[in-house]
């Protein structure tokens, strides 16, 4: 019923539009035809006037020339008898010499011609004839034609409208009605039905309405597929062990809660859909929650991850890892998604780990204190050993060669042990934060020179060439602890000499880098570091495979150097190729 009513409304509107448009066209065509006929009538009238001019000019001229008013009146009466010519007059100068007919003031066409007479070899203008034609007859004719044309066109319009209605009803409205019924009874739960608009007509067509029906059928199929996909996704979401909650901004009320949420919080799904994030998250209040949402809204690409607590239906707290994600789906209202994972177990493990760390730190501190006190206790006897062995060396001539060799070994062993103790002491200070640094802003060039000078003897002993490129240059000042800077450089230079081939090269250079950084580079042509060992370069007590070699070393120099560099705000690094050598560098900010 509703369908037919709608169809009827549409068809009525169509008929109305057809009638209106046809009427408009009728009016225009009628106007055009009338104008055409008017033009033709006026042309005929003008032709009549022209004929009058041609036919009567001579007679009128002669009558005027002869001053024969009687003859002239007869001629003018003849002119006046022409169809639609209502008045004719002959003027001499401004005076009306003779006239015929009734003069009118409106709806006339006026035409005039001069009367010339050849006299005494001259052409004289002896007067003017004015002919007036009445348009009333033409107008009357046009009015009659108007009614005839309008009447015939109206009948045509009526039959065309009737035919169009029949045609549209058959071809369009009935089939559209079918589509309407199909759309009206469309049920998302039942997407298997299909529409066939050609059933009415009994044969297949491929017009637009059939195409719409086909498109609807295809849409139905796609809808069915999409619905299945959605249901699958929903099931996945529902069954997820994680808690998934969704809410719209504004009310914050959840509009989705999965099974995981129900299980974790103990509320039913219906209960959860009455709640907001503030009801289940005691760590959040309105202000903090708004701040969080606004933060997330600013960068929708990135989810906010944080740890918090949920309170379940029984009032128990559940530690959770929360992911808050802002979603702005196209053509839908934007929303916030909360994904929460119960981290109770992880929290327990973390607590245990923390405890272990604290214990380890305490042990490390005890170790450092022990090392410090031990180092201090060792330094006193070692200084005595070194001092006395040095005295014995000075008095070498009183010793036998074997004794002299033994004293040298004692002295060398003592110095090595002292270095080891000093390094361990420094390392302990660093680890226990007991090292005191005294920063100064200074020119590094002179310090570098001193460092190079102090390792020169060592280099000479291995016939190693020291190339210091940081000479006679003006470098920016850096803020450093002078003693520790020298300690770092000497350590790196010593390593470069120690782990170099005989007659090798050690090069010291610099580079000004971006962000106000100056890089000091110490490169050698030594053995290099194996790739596998490069990750342990800065690990304490690791000599990278040189443990059994003749090269002296404790394995804590680079570790200590790294810590000192970092304490002064610098960065240390290296590049090394086994068999070719290494390059260590340190970066400091310059002033």
């Amino acid at each position, binding site marked *: 019923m509703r369908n037919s009513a709608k169809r009827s409304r549409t068809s009525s509107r169509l008929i109305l539009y057809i009638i209106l448009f046809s009427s408009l066209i009728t009016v225009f065509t009628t106007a055009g035809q009338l104008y055409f006929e008017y033009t033709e009538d006026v042309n005929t009238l003008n032709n009549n006037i022209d004929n009058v001019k041609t036919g009567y000019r001579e007679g009128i001229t002669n009558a005027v*020339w*002869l*001053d*024969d008013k009687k003859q002239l009146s007869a001629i003018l009466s003849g002119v006046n008898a022409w169809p639609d010519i209502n008045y004719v007059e002959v003027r001499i100068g401004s005076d009306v010499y003779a006239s015929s007919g009734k003069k009118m003031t409106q709806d006339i066409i006026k035409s005039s011609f001069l009367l010339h007479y050849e*006299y*005494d070899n001259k052409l*004289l203008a002896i007067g003017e004839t004015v002919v007036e034609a009445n348009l009333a007859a033409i107008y009357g004719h046009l009015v009659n034609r108007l009614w005839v044309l309008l009447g015939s066109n109206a009948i045509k319009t009526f039959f065309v409208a009737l035919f169009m209605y029949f045609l549209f009803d058959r071809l369009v409205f009935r089939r559209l009605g079918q589509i309407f019924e199909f759309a009206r009874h469309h049920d998302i739960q039942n997407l298997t039905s299909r529409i066939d608009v050609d059933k009415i007509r009994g044969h297949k067509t491929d017009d637009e309405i059939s195409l719409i029906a086909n498109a609807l059928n295809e849409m139905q199929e796609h809808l069915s597929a999409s619905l299945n996909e959605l249901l699958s996704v929903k099931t996945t979401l529902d069954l997820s062990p994680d808690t998934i909650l969704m809410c719209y901004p504004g009310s914050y009320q959840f509009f989705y809660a999965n099974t995981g949420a129900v299980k974790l919080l103990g509320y039913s799904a219906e209960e959860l859909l009455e709640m907001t994030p503030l009801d289940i998250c005691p760590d959040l209040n309105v202000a903090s929650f708004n701040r969080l949402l606004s933060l997330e809204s600013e960068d929708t690409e990135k989810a906010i991850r944080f740890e918090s607590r949920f309170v379940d239906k029984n009032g128990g707290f559940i530690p959770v890892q929360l992911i808050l994600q802002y979603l702005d789906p196209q053509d839908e209202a934007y929303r916030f998604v909360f994904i929460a994972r119960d981290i109770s177990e992880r929290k327990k493990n973390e607590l245990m780990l923390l405890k272990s760390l604290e214990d380890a730190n305490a042990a490390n501190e005890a170790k450092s204190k022990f090392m410090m006190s031990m180092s201090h206790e060792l330094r006193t006897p070692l200084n005595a050993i070194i001092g006395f062995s040095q005295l014995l060396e000075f008095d070498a001539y009183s010793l036998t060669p074997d004794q002299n060799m033994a004293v040298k070994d004692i002295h060398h062993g003592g110095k090595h042990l002292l270095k080891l103790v000093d390094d361990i002491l420094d390392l302990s200070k660093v680890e226990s934060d007991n090292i005191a640094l005294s920063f100064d802003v200074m020119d590094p060039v002179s310090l570098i020179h001193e460092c190079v000078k102090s390792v020169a003897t060592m280099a000479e002993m291995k016939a190693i060439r020291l190339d210091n490129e940081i000479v006679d240059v003006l470098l920016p000042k850096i803020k450093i602890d002078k003693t520790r800077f020298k300690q770092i450089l000497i350590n790196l230079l010593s390593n470069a000499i120690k782990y170099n081939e005989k007659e090798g090269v050690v090069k010291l250079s610099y580079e000004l880098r971006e962000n106000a950084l100056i890089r000091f580079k110490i490169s050698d042509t030594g053995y290099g570091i194996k790739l596998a060992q490069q990750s342990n370069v800065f690990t304490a007590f690791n000599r990278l495979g040189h443990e059994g070699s003749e090269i002296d070393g404790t394995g804590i120099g680079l570790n200590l150097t790294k810590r000192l560099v970092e304490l002064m705000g610098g960065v240390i690094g290296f590049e090394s190729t086994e068999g070719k050598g290494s390059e260590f560098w340190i970066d400091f900010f310059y002033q």
Partner: protein
Amino acid sequence: MKQSIVSRNFRFLIFYSLTGIILSIASAQAATQLTLNSGTAEPFITKEGGGFYGEIVKELFSRLEIDAKVIRLPSSRSVINANQGIDAGVIARTKGFEKKYKNLIRVPGSIVSFKFVAYSLDKKIDVTDWDSFKPYSVGMIRGWRIYEKNVVNAKKITMVTGPEQLFKLLMNGRSDLILFEYYRGSWWNKHLNAKAHLIGSPIAEKEMFLYMNKKHAALIPQLAKALEDMKKDGTYQRIKDQTLTRFLK
């Protein structure tokens, strides 16, 4: 001395300029032929512009050293043309004509005297005044006012459109008398061999004059003088004899 030479040269310049102007006006007058018209017909004016009026005008204007001719026109047209200045003048019209046609000026001195007479085939008929037409059927040309006004109680009045019709009316016995002008009547009588007789003496007589358009008003005194001279020296009579009187025989 120098001043007198300049003054003399200036005088010469003035003299030659004035002489040039006068000569150019005179030659312009001589070169331009004036056209006059007449609304009548033979014997006063022939189709070729000859006849009494043609000769009179030629002589009259030649005395003023002006070339002039006369063209024969329908009566109404002749007056219109003269009044509008299309033609220089009209010959010959009755006195008082200038009251109706304001652009025309009469030249003093009559050109000719029109005699209004009656013709009949019957010699016995005699008329002496306007009332004596009463017992007769009379024919006259439409538009001749003198007849239309005075001959009102004739036994029968027949109006015709021209002289030929008038004489044929008489010749066919459809009228006892016809009324016409003396000189023209004599010409038509002879021309149609109508054998009509002049009845009695003229019933009326009117002096006819030359009228000039006011554009030529300056010529009028000279024309009047020349006409008077022509009458005095016999030229006028000679022309009249040659062109009018011979038809009376």
